[in-house]
Structures are given as C-alpha cells and as structure tokens.
C-alpha cells in the first residue's frame, strides 16, 4: 500500500467539525502538521483533542470539514490513511493475554507485512524498544513503561509516515515517561517521523513538541512554537501560564464520566 510521499504538510485539516447530538466536540478546526515535526495538541479534558485524533485516524467520521493525512483524504480514502499511520491510543491497546511477540505478529499480519519480513521487523521493533529479552513474555506481566514501549513498537512496525499518540505517558512513572520521550526523539532523529501527540503534561509538551496548539471547547485558542508562545506572555512565562491564558485563566470543570473512568483505568493499568 503505497501513496504519495508526504513532503510538506502531512496533516492538513480544514474546518474539521464533530458534533455528538447537541454537543459540539470539535468546532471548525484547521490544522497543518509539517513533515518531521512533533506537533502537540494541548487542552483540558473535553477540549476535543481525542475527538480530533479519532477523526484524523478515521475512527470517527467528521460532521463537517475535510482533512488529508499522509496525502489521503480521511473521508474518501480511510483505508489508505490507516495504512500510512501508526496510532497509540490513550487506553492500553496491547493484549495482556498474548505475548509481546504475538501482539507484534498480529499487527504485522493486519498491516500486510509479508511473512518473509515479519520476523526481522518484529525483532527490530523489540530491540529498538529494549524488549528483546521479553518477546516471549505475556504482556500482562509487563510494567507500564514496557507496555507503552511495546505499543510504540506495534504502531511503528509497518513504518508509518505519521504517528498519533493520545496521551502516551499517562500513568507512567517519571523514569518510564522519560524513556518514552527519548524513544520519540530518537525516532524523529533517525526516521524523520512526524508525530501528532495530545498531552496534559506541560513538561512533556515543552520537551518534545516543535509546535503546539492549545484547544478549548473544540477550538484552537493558541498556536505556535513553545518559546514563541511563552515569549508572548513575558520573559518569565511558563507553558503553564500560556495554557492558563489560552483557557481564559479560569479553572473549568470538564470531561465526562466515561472519559474520567477511561483515564483512571489507563493510569491504574500502567502505573
């Protein structure tokens, strides 16, 4: 499954909108992510970050607007989009009842990696993520950091153009979190991989992202490089200040019961 190689903008979204009944989860979002960039979507719970990612990964149809991902239209060419992206959801997507090798082998078969290439790709993925010794272990015996690294290996097995990460370090301890960051930086350095990441963690956004968009109520409230956003508020401003300013400086009660449950479950599984 080959397509036009993305050279400029890997993600181009125009007026992307998603409604759930009366609720407007994403409101006319326009976005461009350049090739090789780590782009961060920030925002409080319920801001529309995960809904945006679900639309861009074709898990959810937009109510209005258009987007192309890796050169393919998300509405008319969803299978082509799926063949060119990797995705690590906020939830724990590795199957605990299978070994690491079996999880990777399942991904390889679903992505059409030929049986001749499979073993080598799986070995390479395990090695890159520091899991070579653990390929035969059931994933339910893994630590949170190991699970996340395995999920990254699964998402990268078919060598995608673009990686979507929905709060990848939620529930991880500081060491495991730093390891995930290092792996992402290494991937960008070695493969020029484009990454679109959602996070609540300002340190993560500061450390990793070349460009940020801060979302609130389904809309982008601020956008730019971290340094430029901070400079816009003053010399001593932090990304937390930028976030608070973009969100109106008001503590808002956001997120729903299901969302909170999912986040806590993920944190508990990985922690």
């Amino acid at each position, binding site marked *: *499954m080959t397509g036009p190689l993305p050279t400029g903008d890997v993600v181009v979204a125009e007026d992307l909108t998603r409604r759930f009944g009366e609720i407007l989860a994403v409101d006319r979002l326009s976005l461009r992510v350049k090739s090789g960039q780590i782009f961060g979507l920030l925002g409080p719970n319920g801001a529309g970050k995960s809904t945006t990612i*679900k639309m861009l*990964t*074709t*898990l*959810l149809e937009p109510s209005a607007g258009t987007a192309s991902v890796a050169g393919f239209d998300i509405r008319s060419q969803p*299978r*082509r989009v*799926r*063949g060119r*992206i990797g*995705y690590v*959801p*906020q*939830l*724990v*997507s*590795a*199957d*605990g*009842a*299978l070994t690491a090798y*079996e999880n990777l*082998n*399942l*991904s390889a*078969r*679903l*992505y*059409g990696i030929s049986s001749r290439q499979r073993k080598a790709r799986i070995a390479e993925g395990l090695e890159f993520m520091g899991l070579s010794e653990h390929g035969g272990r059931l994933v339910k015996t893994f630590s949170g950091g190991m699970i996340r690294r395995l999920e990254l290996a*699964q998402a990268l097995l078919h060598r995608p153009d673009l990686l979507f990460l929905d709060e990848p370090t939620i529930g991880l301890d500081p060491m495991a979190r730093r390891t995930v960051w290092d792996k992402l930086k290494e991937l960008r350095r070695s493969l020029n991989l484009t990454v679109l990441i959602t996070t609540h963690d300002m340190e993560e956004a500061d450390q990793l992202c070349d460009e940020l968009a801060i979302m609130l109520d389904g809309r982008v409230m601020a956008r730019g490089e971290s340094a430029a956003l901070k400079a816009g508020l003053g010399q001593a401003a932090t990304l937390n200040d930028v976030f608070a300013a973009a969100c109106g400086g008001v503590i808002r009660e956001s997120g729903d019961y299901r969302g909170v449950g*999912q986040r806590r*479950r*993920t944190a508990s599984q990985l922690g």
Partner: protein
Amino acid sequence: MIAGQFLEQGLAIADVEARKVLRDPTELFSRAVQPVLWLVIFGRVFGRVRGIPTGHLDYTAFLAPGILAQSILFSSIFYGIGVIWERDLGIVHKLLVSPAHRSALVLGKALAAGLRGLAQAVLIYVLVCLMGIGLRWSPQALLGVVLMVAAASALFSTFSLMIACIVKTRERFMGIGQLLTMPLFFASNAIYPIALMPGWLRIAARLNPLTYVTDALRGLMIAGGGSVYGLRLDFAVIAAAFLALTAATSVLYPTIIR
C-alpha cells in the same frame, strides 16, 4: 491479492483468539457442566415420561443434538461481552485503526468462535458416548457435524457481536443476552418436536435458526436419526443468516468505540 490479504487478516484474528482459549481453557470445561446436567438429569427423567413423540429414537438420543445446539447458542451468545471488554481496554481501537477490512475482523472473530464450538462439541461427544447413545461415525456425517457446529457458532457469535455494537455496555448486554437465550432455546426443536407446539410457537420455531442447527445435527450425529427439513435447507438457512449478520456487523463494528 485482496482475497489473500482478507484471508490473512481474518486468520490473524482467529489465531490470537484460539491462542487465548488454549492458554486458559477453563471456560471450555466450565461450559461443559450445563450439557451434563441437561443430558444426565433432564434427559434421563423425561426419558421415563414417554409422553414426547420422538419417533423410533430414545429421548436422550433425541435430546443430545439439541443440547449440543444449546451449548453452542449459550456460549456464543455471550461472545460479544468480550468485545465490549476489548473496547474498554483499547484493543478494538488498535484493530480498527489498522487497514484490515472490517468484515475480515468480524469473520476472524466468527472463525475463532467456530473453533471454540468444535472444542465444546468434542466434550459433548465424549459425554454422549459415555451415556451409550448411538452415534454416526462415517466421515461424511462427522464432516457435516464439524461444518454445522462451526457455522452455528459463527452465526450466534456474530449475532452477539452485533448486539454488543448496538448496546455498547456490559450491563445492557448481559440483560439482552439473558433475554434472548431462553426464548431462542424453548422456541426450537432442541428438547421437543415442533409438532407438539401451538400454532403461533410453531411459526416462531420455523423462523428460529437454532431449529435448523438442531435438525441438521439430529440427522448427522445420531445413529438412526434424520433431518426433518433436509440438510440442504438447514445449511442454506444458517449460511444465509450468517452472511446477512456479517454484513450488518461489519458496518456496526466501528461504532462500538463511539
């Protein structure tokens, strides 16, 4: 090329499901308890009544294919709860964001359910042999049983997956599952002939796929048993229902994450 990919994707799903069952086969053995109760207690007691017209078959011989069909129904109808669990874990997200055909994912699940059904059939065959019920051992008859057990398991598990995609929560699913199993079981020829039923129930039984599963198994499994509707019709009904449900479930499957 596309057919090859489709087959590979379906087999990949069936493969991991089978590995999980083999790694922890507790469920297969626990599900074998209910058929034992039906055959050994219910079958023996009602066999003494002699009020149920089963032709030249002993009542336990008449009952055995019905209990195999029931066992397939009861285990397959709750298959969807596992998919709700996988959705909550995030496993479904990973499958749906792959370029795999949605219908291949659904068919892979159905194939895995077919394998589970066959494992249950083996346990029931052992039990039926121990009870001294005469079975047909010809290769054609055994192949027919294998095909019908696999097809029926695939049908009812796909039905279950479709319900899971509609109701989306474990609590609602359990309620619907309980609501469906008993009417499907009692409105069929599993434990008594349809001829004994009042007219309205007879119509319901003729529309019930479990009737055709039991009818085929009665003809293929039991020495001296026969199919009332004919094996061709039995297989055609199950195949048509399975294809229709697979088409509907392939459309509904991506909606389970919303």
